[in-house]
């Protein structure tokens, strides 16, 4: 969108990410709540019973540090948890264990590309907390409005990533969100699916006239459950605030929810003292000392991240940059492709095109995930080698690939049954002569200047060889035989 001239827009994003640990943040109950019936993944700790003691899940701390490392954050040696107090039925204890002044990761940045330019969005902090129970607002059995609580989600590890107010429009916010999601997936710390609530992006939006004092009225926008909604909500909110200022009205500091059906943000009349959380150090949890050894161990555990892979594909392996961009959007497909590239003697670009086109078409047709390609990287490299050697034409290789997907038979078996491409010149020349003898009309057409007659003869050769003739060779030989025929 185009923002009306004369206004400054700054946006900061707060992203909540559910970590995909096996157990919850402070208890051993399974965190895999998504498909569980209500209130079946609950223990005294996540139910907030009196007298229970939380114990920190080391994997959640590791995942948060790894995320910080990917975002170039500093990992301070001291961290602690704090209690954030507020009274709401989704919070079983009436406080949430979170991190206030000593988060696990401090500072950092994420580089994004939007509106044709590359920018660094500064990261303020990454901290760890626990998710809340899920509330559903319904009409109860007695016809009265009621809220229902499912405690399964309570205590699921939740990581919060906060940016500086460096974002200036909806496109940048979406670019940031998409890039962050991809990194989280490459790290394997979260499914980062927005529609399941594993990735939730809230925005703080401030608008003020250029030249006026820096605006300090922040409007928090929530409830966007897709990237499309994020973009639309920010566009709407920027327009709304500019509209108010144009009419000489005051902006109000408030929280607004995105209403998908009405395509607008709606004020959420929240509790008056929303930000009076009275944080204090969590007395049930000793502080965390993050040793340098631990940070080093986690640094070693970090996979190569999408930006680095992209750079390697383009600069070292000569892959087209649009193809590299497409490939790194899919971690599993990229990993598989890199594995094949390593085993393939030919150019990497050949492998990438093959995977993005032929392999992905079959994955889509069979509704398979990229992680479930039924062909080993070694077999795939062999198939590409057969094609490169000319033992298989491109068409034949495609057919073999399709059969491998369908039957899961080994490559050798399929190639043995189907036969290899015939590239032997003597054998092909003989077939070419036979076809010419059987089709005198086509030969006459060719001599009369109808070049298309070659296509017909070519088709006849392919038929006789059940598609196994090397098409390039056949064209070449046909033309040679035809001109010799004219000379005769």
């Amino acid at each position, binding site marked *: 969108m185009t923002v009306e001239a004369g206004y400054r827009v700054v946006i900061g994003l707060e992203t909540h990410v559910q970590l995909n640990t096996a157990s919850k943040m402070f208890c*051993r109950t399974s965190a895999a709540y998504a498909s569980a019936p209500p209130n079946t993944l609950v223990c005294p700790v996540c139910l907030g019973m009196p007298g229970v003691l939380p114990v920190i899940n*080391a994997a959640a701390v590791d995942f948060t540090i790894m995320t910080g490392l990917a975002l170039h954050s500093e990992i301070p040696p001291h961290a602690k948890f704090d209690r954030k107090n507020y009274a709401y039925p989704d919070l079983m204890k009436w406080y949430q264990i979170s991190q206030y002044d000593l988060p696990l990761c401090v500072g950092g940045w994420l580089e994004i590309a939007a509106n044709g330019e590359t920018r660094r969005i500064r990261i303020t902090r990454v901290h760890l907390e626990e998710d809340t129970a899920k509330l559903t*607002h319904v009409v109860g059995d007695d016809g009265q409005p009621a809220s229902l609580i499912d405690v399964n989600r309570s205590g699921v590890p939740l990581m919060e990533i906060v940016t500086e107010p460096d974002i200036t429009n909806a496109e940048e916010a979406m670019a940031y969100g998409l890039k962050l999601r991809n990194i989280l997936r490459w790290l394997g710390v979260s499914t980062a699916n927005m529609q399941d609530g594993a990735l939730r992006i809230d925005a703080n939006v401030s608008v003020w006239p250029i030249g006026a004092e820096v605006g300090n009225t922040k409007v928090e926008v929530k409830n966007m459950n897709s990237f499309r909604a994020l973009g639309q909500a920010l566009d709407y909110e920027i327009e709304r605030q500019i509209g108010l200022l144009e009419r000489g009205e005051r902006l109000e500091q408030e929280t607004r*929810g995105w209403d998908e059906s009405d395509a607008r943000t709606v004020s959420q009349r929240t509790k008056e*003292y929303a930000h009076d959380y*009275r944080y204090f*150090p969590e007395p049930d949890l000793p502080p965390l000392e*993050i040793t340098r050894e631990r940070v080093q161990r986690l640094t070693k555990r970090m996979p190569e991240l999408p930006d680095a892979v992209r750079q390697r594909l383009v600069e070292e392996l000569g892959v087209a940059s649009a193809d590299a961009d497409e490939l790194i959007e899919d971690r599993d497909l990229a990993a598989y492709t890199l594995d094949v590239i390593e085993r393939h003697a030919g150019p990497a670009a050949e492998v990438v095109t093959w995977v993005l086109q032929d392999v992905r078409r079959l994955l889509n047709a069979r509704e398979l995930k990229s992680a479930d390609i039924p062909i080993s990287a070694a077999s795939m490299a062999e198939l590409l080698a057969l094609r490169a050697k000319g033992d298989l034409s491109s068409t034949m290789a495609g057919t073999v690939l399709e059969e491998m997907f369908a039957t899961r038979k080994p490559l050798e078996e399929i190639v043995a049954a189907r036969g290899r491409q015939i590239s032997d010149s003597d054998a092909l020349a003989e077939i070419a002569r036979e076809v010419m003898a059987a089709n005198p009309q086509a030969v006459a057409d060719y001599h009369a200047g109808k070049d298309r007659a070659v296509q017909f003869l070519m088709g006849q050769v392919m038929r006789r060889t059940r598609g196994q003739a090397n098409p390039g060779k056949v064209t070449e030989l046909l033309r040679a035989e035809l001109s010799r025929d004219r000379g005769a």
Partner: protein
Amino acid sequence: MIDREQVVHVAALARLALSEAEIDRMQADLQQILQAFEALNALDVSDVSPTAQVIPLATVERLDETEAPLSRDDVMRNAPRVERDQIRVPAVLPEE
């Protein structure tokens, strides 16, 4: 000194409906509690490092392993009202 307004504010945060008499009583009680803590301000702590925890432990963590949860019947045992296998409470406005 804690004033009446602060008592009402804290009560509102805790979702407590206090009567006028209760507000008076709470103001007096809270005042006493705060005075007790005021005594700490008299101490010289210039050579004490900032302390968030008095237990001499750090980095107590556990492995990411699961164990069986409670049965749903047990989870619901203290619920004031159960509906559709969930805890039913008076309607609250969608908030967070």
